[in-house]
């Protein structure tokens, strides 16, 4: 499992192992300030990072920033 979340420290505390920092609490996978095409690109990149995290062998909690 990859945890895409805004507050990394909470994710670490509850014990997620693959952590991907997101944009902000009310819009973790988006940014309303960006034009739609750029926002979609941002979202796609975050998901790619999460997919990469799922394909990365780890021994301990890891933040993929």
């Amino acid at each position, binding site marked *: *499992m*990859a*945890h*895409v*979340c*805004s*507050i990394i*420290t*909470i*994710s670490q*505390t*509850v*014990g*997620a*192992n*693959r952590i991907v920092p*997101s944009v*902000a*609490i*009310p*819009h*973790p*996978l*988006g940014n*309303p300030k960006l034009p739609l095409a750029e926002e*979609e690109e941002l*979202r*796609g990149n*975050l*998901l*790619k990072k*999460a*997919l990469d995290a*799922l*394909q*990365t*062998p*780890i*021994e*301990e*909690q*890891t933040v993929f920033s």
Partner: protein
Amino acid sequence: MAEASRNRKYRIVHYVNQFFGGVGGEEKADIEPFTIKGPQGPGRLLEKLFREENADVEIVATVVCGDSYFADHQENVLREQIPVIRGYHPDLVVAGPAFNAGRYGMACGAICQALEPLGIPAITAMYKENPGLDQYRKTVLIVESANNVSGMEDAVRKMVRLGIKRLRGEKIESPKAEGCFEQGIRQNYFHEEPAYRRAIDMLLRKINGETFETEYPIPFFDRVEPQPALADLKGVTIALVTSGGIVPTGNPDHIESSSASKYGKYSLEGLTTLKTKTHQSAHGGYDNTYANEDPNRVLPIDMMRKLETALGFKVHPWYYATVGNGTSVDNARKFAKEIAIELIRDGVQAVILTST
């Protein structure tokens, strides 16, 4: 001389979030920090109860910061606000109580932790399940509070008792006696009874089904071993799960906006994106404006579909959603277990969990 210093007037700075600072609720959670002269909200009660205990204190300032703003800009807020707090020359800083508000608890812990090395005593209070507790309990004295604001007076009273001791430099008793959470500090002392006798007494109480109290609680770390990495995405089924409260419009399962007692399972079959008309956020812990405008910002099915085509994995046709807002750890564990069992049964090999 000790008497004279006991009776002097103490200066306190109080830290609160946007709600207790009187600015507003979740819609104001992104407000930047600012300072009010004197007490505000729970600060008035704090001051009153300090005085009832014959401690001459004055809350010289209240620092207010939005919970989301703090979480998103923690480093900057600390860098800017710690000198502001210091500028008031406080004898003590009180943060919260934060009850079970996660971001607030994290902020209170961070503020206190930053102050202690500067020689400024700082205390806070929160509920035992607040994520700020595990993060800061080792470095910060944290008073145990109820999980919501109905426990305000009790929490403030306990903070006052502890605060007076810290102001006067008096000895802090055991965590239990002070109403604090354990910091994991071991202190040696001489016990009247030798260890073998205490151990046997304890064992006999246990055998007889009586209550007993361990002298060395084993810490409980809820950890799982990292799972092996996926070798390849091709042909793999990946599920989306969220604690961000994205549900079909109307919230058909009535998932609670806070302290959720359930989760929902909803179809993604044939969906290439989520729209305002079809989906919404049921979460009561963040400003829903952006998530309602475009639910993909929390449950990113639109780009998952594009990556599905490009990379050759399969998106599981169901997603699971709950509201992670003051949700009890017991409930969360229960949800996770049920969801994981179903996902494994349905042949899902990986999950992307999104949280607000």
